[in-house]
């Protein structure tokens, strides 16, 4: 078994907005390997999004460690973090995915543009073809349906072939057909691009594609279900 792409070691997170600190995650330990799909399930407010932000190095634990490719996110400088996000992590959200001012193709290309990667347009078009929306390349986001936007978002999240794909309720806002399309893409991300997929979801269909289902309650892991 290869070394895990992502590892959480006894991670806790608490917020202190003026008052006494409130712990929203408690001693979470978790790993995700290349090509695997992990689903986080649990009630609203149980800490899924918080956990995903920690895993994607967009936020930092108050205790414990988050390791991406073996490096603790808390020890990295701002520029190292930026480099890490550019090369290793891709994000998909529930709402508000695309920049309204950029075309579909430019939206997909954006991570490559931000990291000044060469031949970005060609790669982006490839990914867009992969999600079946190459004919929408020149459209603006408001001209797409919600499902199409989500597929564009998946294409964008994978445009730089990240090691880790983080998806926060990717089907939460979609009808069944669109949801299924997006889930198929996520599955392919793991199988074909070898990404470790970490997904928060409320839907049973989504959870079903995962190899590992982690149930959270009040910031604690209450069950891990493999198979």
């Amino acid at each position, binding site marked *: 078994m290869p070394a895990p792409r992502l590892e959480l070691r006894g991670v806790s997170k608490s917020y202190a907005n003026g008052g006494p600190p409130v712990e929203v995650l408690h001693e979470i330990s978790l790993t995700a390997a290349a090509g695997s799909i992990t689903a986080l399930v649990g009630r609203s407010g149980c800490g899924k*999004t918080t956990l995903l*932000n920690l895993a*994607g190095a*967009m*936020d930092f634990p108050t205790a414990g460690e988050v390791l991406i490719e073996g490096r603790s996110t808390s020890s990295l400088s*701002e*520029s190292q973090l*930026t480099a890490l*996000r*550019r090369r290793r992590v891709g*994000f998909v*959200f529930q709402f*508000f*995915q695309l*920049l*309204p*001012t*950029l075309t579909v193709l*430019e939206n997909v290309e*954006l*991570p490559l*543009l*931000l*990291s*000044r990667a060469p031949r970005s347009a060609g790669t982006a078009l490839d990914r867009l073809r992969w999600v079946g929306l190459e004919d929408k390349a020149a459209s*603006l*986001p*408001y001209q797409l349906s919600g499902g199409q936007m989500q597929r564009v978002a998946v294409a*964008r999240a994978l445009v*730089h072939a990240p090691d880790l794909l983080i998806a926060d309720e990717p089907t939460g806002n979609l009808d069944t057909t669109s949801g299924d399309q997006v889930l198929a893409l996520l599955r392919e991300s793991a199988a074909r691009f070898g990404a470790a997929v970490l997904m928060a979801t409320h839907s049973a269909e989504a959870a079903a594609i995962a190899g590992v289902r982690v149930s959270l309650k009040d910031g604690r892991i209450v069950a891990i279900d493999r198979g």
Partner: protein
Amino acid sequence: MKPRMKLLRSLILRPLRRDLPRTLLTVLSVALGVAVVVAIDLAGDAATGSFRSSMETLAGKTDLEITANGGVDERWIAALAALPVDARFSPVIETQAVLAGVGSVALYGLDLLNLAGAPNGLPRVAVSEALARALPVRPSAGTVLTLNLAGRPQRCEVAQLTPAGAAEFVAMDIADAQQVLARYGKLDRIDVSAAPGQDFAALEATVRHTLPAAYLVTLPGARNQENQRMLRAFRWNLRVLSYISLVVGAFLIYNTISISVVRRRAEIGILRAAGAARWMVLWMFLAEALLFGLTGGLLGLALGRILAAATVRLIAGTVNALYTTSRPAPVVLTWAETWLALATGAVVALVSAFAPAREAIQVPPTEAMSRGAHEHRARLAWKRALAWSAGFAAAAWASSQAGPWDGYPVGGYLAALLSVAAAATATPATVLAVNRATRTLVRRKVEGLLAARSLQSSLSRTSVVVAALATAIAMMASVGIMVGSFRQTVALWLDVQLRADLYVRAAAPAAAGVNPPLPPDIGAVLSAIPGVAAVDLFHALDLHYAGERATLGAGNLDVVRRYGRLRFLPGQNRDAILRSLSAGDGPNRAIVSEPFAIKHHIRAGDRLTIPIGPHMVALRVAGVYYEYSSSQGFVVVDNATLRRYLPGQPATNAAVYLAPGADAQKVRRQIQLRTAGMGISVAPNSELRRAAIEIFDRTFAITWALEAVALVVAMLGAANSLLALVLDRRREIGLLRYLGASPAQIRGMILTEAGLFGLLAAILGLALGFALSLLLIFVVNRQSFGWTIQFHPPGLLLAAALAAVWSVTLLAALYPARVAARLVPAEVVHEE
């Protein structure tokens, strides 16, 4: 009432408090706009409001004033006194004296017999208490003061201190004054005061009938009114300039309210669905604007009061140099001014908020239109806006063709306003065009791409800010071009005008309308100096023509013809004209300066009747010449003509032309040597030229100050709008960070956006600026001052100014850029 207040609190006031930096920036920009208007008004009043002779307190009330150019013959006192009327006729001499430690003060010669007949031979003077306080050493009875009279020191003994309020003056008996000033037989005026019971109309009629027709009999306020009339064009132009900052401020309120409406579209929709009436929504946004207007107005009033105190000297200096002597009075903030400031702030706020507020009530209930769709619609409107722009431009052109209205260039002002409107409505098209043109360039960096797209996608909002910035730049550019052209025109004209090598005048403080006489034998003294080829003795006299003030000049026009380079309007033969003036036979001829010709609608060949001394003299206008030293204008005749009507009138200036090869320095020293003690100053033409340009620059210093304020307002606006754009795009910025943008890239994006703002504003501003400068030069200036200014845009200055504006825009963007770079992505991306 209650629910409305509650709505106002939750929908308007709370967001204002949450966005405190932006609220403050908006209030500050309104405040600056109002402050400039208040300052110019107050300072203008203080600088020009003090012509009233300070001697009223000394000599009592005056009912009529008798004046004449070349002075009033004192024999008329006796003739008037013999009239069967019950009135007092007092001779007056009024001039300026210089006192060490105080500077120039008024010196009056009056019938003050109690002062006459000094025991020790020194003239005895009364000193006003205000002046006594201003002197370095407070005088008392018996103190000896040294007055500097046209360069000659004159010792006097203080006989008494006279309480006269804030007036600063020295007074002596009329006989002493005539003696120390060597003005025998001549008075500056005769003041008439009627005894109680004397029929005023009869008195006036009798006095007029007794005196020569050329003598002016006026009410005492007339001079003050004449001064105010003379200054009105000057003050109007300053005032109009001061409105620029207000226009810029109006754009910014428009912008702020638009942002406020766009941000609360969803709330408005919900409110309307919940049954809120349209007018209530309208009222709320207008209330928000009113809040900005009134707070800004109040702050502006305080700021304006301070600014006025700082600018009053500047304006007084200009009035002194260009128009007439005045001493700045203290700045007084009146209630009228206070209400005006508040009303200005409120009206500007309401007017500029009306359009966006109306947009707010057109939001259909429940439809919370997304910003993307809203902006998309705005983008489609650019063609219609461009059509409007063309309409405004055509109207501007038509309005610029109109003549002056009651002496004011109303058409010109209207054309300027219409041009601003044309530029503002052309902004969306320009933004799109520039965006398209720079597409490949900005695409090289992702920051550029993002910035350009965001600029385009928030087109309606971007356009307002660009228009505000462009208006400020345009005003700066146009005034820069106008002043630069004017300066160059004046410099060229001075080269032509000041052909003599040396200029001689009485060594008194220089001020417009003050022409101290030279000693009578000065012509002979100068001509006798070796190296002097010719001397042109010039006489400058006050002239009142058609209710306006002007200068009557007389010179040796044959010398001018042979040595000078006077330029006449196109098609007029200089040599023939000057020859005809100095010919000495035939009818009396004169030439007039261009401002005089324009003001009084006079052309070459017309007849002109003016008073010269006691005579009304008919003159034929032989030509119109270019002149830039005074907007009041000149009528110039030959010395021979003047002598015919005013024999023995002393010259006021002399121009000395040197023989070829003569050493100007040596001749100058010779003149100084031979006129020692006569109180004369000699200056080479280079010095006069420099002094004239210095006066010019000082005159326009205030203009630059106004420009600077307009720019500061625009900068505040740029910072304000960029901050709004950053806050509104929080989620997008957060998303970008998730996609791998570094804080530096976010900062770069905002700064690039600011750079594009600046570029757009510079392009539009420059175009508008050129149009406005043409209006200023060929319509406004010509109609208000009568000057033909040649078009000389100061390229380097403009380039430097644009570079400065651009840098300051970037500087203004630093704060919003910092805010953007510091947003915490995990917090902002999940909002809403």
